[in-house]
């Protein structure tokens, strides 16, 4: 600091951004040190949405954890369902039937689409492009209609079961999804025209929140934020789960790792996800959607009401919970924000001994100070939006 500045008693302004600030919507607090509008330092304070997810899981049966996972990333709950079910299946050592796997792919991709819609829309909103926000919210509404038709709820899906699904695809799903995707693509094109080439938008996001690829890997970035740096890491491609290896889709990658690349990657992923859903619907095999293993998947109601052995066994599995063999497992799926991992430890009882979640947005949120230091207050907004920190997942 120069002598004049010292004489003027000039000092940094320390300011709390959040938790009740429009951009942090109650889930995070930034402690900013400002010089004028420039950010000198920033501390991220998380934990406002902590609910003790892991402890709750330890007190519920393996089945009861599934509704809890809906509340992790509450914008794309179906992916969390799928991720948890896959982890438990890996622990048990079973594989769901083919048709189930296809439907799970459809469910995850629908959730991914809705998540990216929300994310791009919300960033538009917070940058002042209110209209783009509502176009994508309309599109998301249509996708949620599909999800509601599939699982009976819009957000709290609770759809995937260990070793199967709650129910099969409903009638008319394919026709409806075709109509929905048509309208969604129109709205996508509108938003694309409103934002992608608009210089006001480009100036807000370009070269803002840049993360070099080496640093991104070092900080543990995954998902669209890592792909924006130019690294095509996608769990669906590198460690294919379900039937993703039979799907034809591209991994969008950016070049510089700034917010504009993150935006472009997400916009392209919406299209790729729609392609995957259409392919999966076309290739959909017939057959059962649940494994025929009463010890892991509840039996059908016909069996329960007609056979006394089934009835007794049903009571046993429901009250005690299914019992995966003792052991520990890590299984990851490609969440909407990145690698969503479940680390499960079983002691052979009906309840998880430990259920740890690797949230994709925790490393991203941790890197916020690095990304915004030295830039303006206004740059926090696109950066924070584009890392898409979801309180429910980050704080658990």
């Amino acid at each position, binding site marked *: 600091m120069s002598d004049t500045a010292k004489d003027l008693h000039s000092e940094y302004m320390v300011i709390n951004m959040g938790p009740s600030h429009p951009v942090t919507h109650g889930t995070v607090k930034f402690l900013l040190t400002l010089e004028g509008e420039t950010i000198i330092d920033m501390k991220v304070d998380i934990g406002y949405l902590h609910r003790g997810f892991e402890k709750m899981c330890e007190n*519920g*049966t393996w*089945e*009861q954890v*599934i*509704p809890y996972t*809906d509340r992790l990333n509450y914008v794309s709950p179906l992916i969390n369902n799928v991720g948890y079910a896959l982890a438990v299946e890996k622990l048990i050592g079973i594989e769901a039937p083919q048709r189930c796997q296809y439907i799970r792919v459809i469910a995850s991709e629908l959730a991914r689409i809705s998540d990216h819609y929300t994310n791009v829309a919300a960033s538009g909103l917070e940058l002042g492009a209110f*209209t783009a926000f509502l176009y994508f919210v309309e599109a998301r509404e249509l996708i949620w209609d599909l999800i*509601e*038709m*599939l699982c*009976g*709820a819009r957000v*709290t899906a*609770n759809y995937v079961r260990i070793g199967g*699904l*709650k*129910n*099969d695809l409903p009638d008319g799903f394919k026709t409806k999804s075709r109509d929905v995707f048509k309208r969604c693509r129109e709205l996508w094109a*509108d938003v694309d*025209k*409103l934002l992608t*080439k*608009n*210089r*006001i938008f*480009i100036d807000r996001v*370009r*070269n803002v929140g*840049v993360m070099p*690829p080496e640093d991104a890997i070092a900080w543990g970035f995954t998902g669209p934020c890592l792909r924006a*740096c*130019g*690294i*095509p*890491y996608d769990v669906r*491609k*590198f460690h294919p789960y379900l039937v993703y290896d039979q799907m034809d*889709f*591209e*991994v*969008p*990658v*950016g*070049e*510089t790792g700034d917010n504009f690349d993150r935006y472009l*990657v997400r*916009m*392209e992923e919406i299209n790729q996800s729609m392609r995957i859903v259409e392919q999966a619907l076309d290739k959909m095999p017939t057959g059962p959607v*649940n494994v025929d293993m009463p010890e892991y998947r*509840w039996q*059908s*109601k*016909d069996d*329960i*009401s007609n056979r006394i052995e089934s009835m007794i066994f*049903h*009571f046993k599995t*429901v*009250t005690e919970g299914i019992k995966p063999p003792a052991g520990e497992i890590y299984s990851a799926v490609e969440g909407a924000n990145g690698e969503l991992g479940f680390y499960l430890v079983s002691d052979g009882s009906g309840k998880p001994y430990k259920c740890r979640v690797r949230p994709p947005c925790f490393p991203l949120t941790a890197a916020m100070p690095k990304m915004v230091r030295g830039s303006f207050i206004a740059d926090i907004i696109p950066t924070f939006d584009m890392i898409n920190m979801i309180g429910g997942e980050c704080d658990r």
Partner: protein
Amino acid sequence: MADINIIHNYPKMGIPMGKLKPKRVRKNIELTLWERLYIFEIIRGMHITTIHFFLNLLGFIFPPKGKKRRIMTVYYPEEKLTLPVAYRGRPVLVMRENGTEKCVACGLCEKICPASAITIIAEEKENGERFPAAYTLDMARCVYCGYCEEVCPKEAIVMSAEYEGLARRNRQNLRFSKDKLLRPEKSVKDRIEYIRGIYAKCNY
């Protein structure tokens, strides 16, 4: 600024090529002249919003066939959404025609409920039949997961299509007892048929 050709360097960083299909989304690093001049893209954006403006305005005056207006908003209390049969509203107990509940107080729903919303006090009739003397469903706790419906061996509790009347000033008022939960079987017939369809078949 990072090396912009990083996409060609990633094998060096220990990431295998695999059968990836990377697709570059960033067309240009620097702004093109077209983008540099604000005005054209602004006019294009205004063109989009203006088209939406006039189409929606016309949609109010001349509604499209089979709809009241072009936009998808539903005027809620007056109009209601048509819910898919899969929709999980609040759980209700199914009532037999003689006014008693189908529930036999086996306690499976109480056990599986992830939010511990259900409390059952079971009793026996003279003929040895079990029935719930008290069945309390705390709607302040219920998360609408539908497990109670899924595990119930008697089709006695189902997720109805009701979603209203759950705003109360006092949480005590949200503890619904049996008389508030019972619904005649006819009113939830669709749902019972639906859950038979999805849960009843062997291997579903």
